[in-house]
């Protein structure tokens, strides 16, 4: 075992990369849950986004176009969930599971011809001057723009939820849909929009994995990150900045675990690989003591006749 082989600059830099897909998916789900909808299909939307982005990027040669396609793919898939839960009033837990199972099958089908292909590489931002700062520059300022996009998105969601009218309406719908309806807000429409946003974010997060982080396509490559993103929203008590903190913590854990594997620690690889999931459970246990922050209408269907 040789721990000195772990380079702290690289470790912290790859932490940001590992955290980005989680952050994207979780911030999308946060908006969905603040609107009172529990979408358990994050994993399915992520993997669909991953293959949509990958396929388009390979065929057009443009990774940016791939990311756009991934967001659209995720959003389209989430519309299925929206149709089921908002118009057909189906159970949200079951519909979310259906979305995940469907997404896994769909992505495997689309992805058949894409195994073993290398996608076009993504340009790094390399911000002038800032990236030359020793240590910090290497960690913070030499990433692709999606890393910064995810952070900007977190800030935007925080600002929108806290300071805009639209954010207030969204929260009202999530806290008490009957009251929001009585005030004349279109509960279903607002929720569908939120679900769509969540789907686009999840798709983007998935494509980040297949296009930038790994980068290649393998079946089921999201490996539970969508579910961890769901847990992250609970961990964050439905607050945007805490989601980011959580994503970076989990990103750090994943990277540390991979580094320890590479450094040849005496713990078997399998036990290191299961650690992110175990830690997710422990964190869930610690955070679930306080349920007061959850949106009051979370998971409940709305129909104007009731």
């Amino acid at each position, binding site marked *: 075992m040789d721990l000195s082989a772990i380079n702290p600059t690289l470790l912290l830099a790859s932490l940001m990369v590992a955290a980005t897909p989680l952050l994207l998916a979780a911030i999308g789900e946060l908006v969905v849950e603040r609107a009172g909808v529990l979408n*358990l299909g994050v994993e399915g939307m992520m993997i669909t986004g991953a293959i949509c982005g990958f396929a388009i990027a390979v065929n057009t040669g443009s990774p940016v176009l791939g990311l756009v396609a991934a967001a659209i793919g995720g959003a389209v898939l989430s519309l*299925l969930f929206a*149709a*089921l839960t908002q118009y*057909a*009033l*189906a*159970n949200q*837990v*079951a*519909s979310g*599971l*259906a979305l995940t*199972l*469907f*997404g*896994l*099958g*769909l992505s*495997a*089908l689309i*992805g*058949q011809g894409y195994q073993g292909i290398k996608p076009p590489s993504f340009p790094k931002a390399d911000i002038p001057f800032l990236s030359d700062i020793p240590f910090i520059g290497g960690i913070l300022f030499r990433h692709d723009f999606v890393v910064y996009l995810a952070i900007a998105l977190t800030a935007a969601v925080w600002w929108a939820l806290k300071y805009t009218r639209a954010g207030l309406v969204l929260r009202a719908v999530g806290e008490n849909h009957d009251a929001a309806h009585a005030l004349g807000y279109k509960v279903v429409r607002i929720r569908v929009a939120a679900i769509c946003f969540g789907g686009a974010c999840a798709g983007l997060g998935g494509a980040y994995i297949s296009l930038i982080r790994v980068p290649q396509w393998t*079946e089921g490559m999201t*490996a*539970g990150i969508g*579910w*961890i993103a*769901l*847990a992250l929203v*609970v961990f964050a008590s439905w607050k945007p900045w805490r989601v980011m903190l959580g994503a970076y913590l989990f990103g750090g854990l994943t990277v540390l675990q991979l580094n320890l594997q590479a450094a040849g620690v005496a713990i*078997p690889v*399998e*036990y290191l*690989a*299961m650690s992110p*999931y*175990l830690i*997710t*459970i422990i964190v*869930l*246990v610690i955070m*679930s*003591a306080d*349920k007061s922050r959850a949106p009051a209408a979370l998971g409940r269907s709305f*129909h104007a*006749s*009731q």
Partner: protein
Amino acid sequence: MLRLEKRPQPSRLWTYLTPVLAVVLTMLCGGVLFALLGKDPVLAIRTIFWEPLFSEFAFYYRPQLLVKGAPLVLIAIGLSLGFKAGIWNIGAEGQYIIGALCGAGVALAFYPLEAAFIFPLMVLAGGLGGWAWAMIPAILKVRFGTNEILVSLMLVYVAEQLLASMSLGLLKNPQGFGFPGSRNLQQYPSAHNAELLAGTGMHWGVVAALIAVIFAYVLLNRHMLGFHIRLTGDAPRAARFAGVSPTRLVLFCLGVSGALAGLAGLFEVAGPSGVVSIDFNAGYGFTAIIVAFLGRLHPVGILLAGGLMALTYVGGDIAQSKLGLPKAAIQLFQGMLLFFLLAVDLTTNYRIRARRKEAS
């Protein structure tokens, strides 16, 4: 425009009709999907749903239906109890793996001893293993209020890693020339879950599945606990006033579903599969969720739904080898089924009416 009108009571007719309607819609959409993939849709659907039952080689496929259907029914019965009460065990796949590991572990510990008590002991170990794995989310739920959906799902990934570690380490065949995977239990008579009647596919897992169906039916219709499960699902507030203990229900529902999933894993590893290997789990734990819903969470319905889903597995395999239909297409087909089911379920609780002109 269409308008929804809530029924005072769920329609009995539609309760029975919706699964059939969902299957028909899935066949139609699946046909379109197969056509898009460049296959003859009618031939593909016929291959999946007709060939395993009535073709000239059906004698070979029919036993396969039992082999695939038994674990699905066994797991789905357990899941349905929880789903009825709003307790979501999504981690059956993990409990299935742990059950198989525990059962196979017992068998391999006794190898090469031949004794009659080994198989019953394995069954016990398998059930207990699955039960223990499901007790983790159950206890965390009752003690700390942790979300059982996320915990049970996370434990699937943990179980998969454990399976990899076991098949490469502790349970690896010492005479396997370094290849991963355990000894083949099919070649160990005391531990082999052999066919009870040769050539029928009938093994102890099938028997267990049938017993589970009867057990669940009696529990739900003739027992107080079953009534409490249904009551909690239909009217949680009323259940609380009636003195139903949620703690007991969570422990019971997760425990039973875990034990049944563990048993399914054990019967699989001791019988059709034979070896503990990295890719031992085949997604039965997740497909069983579809089976539970397709069977409308009713024991007899689940039995039928398990048969149908086994048909898509066996027929899917035939279509894969004969028509070159990709495996993922079958997976997508199964996913679609759940979608349509949830969508048409609307008609059970609501009437769909044309919107009348409102008085202005």
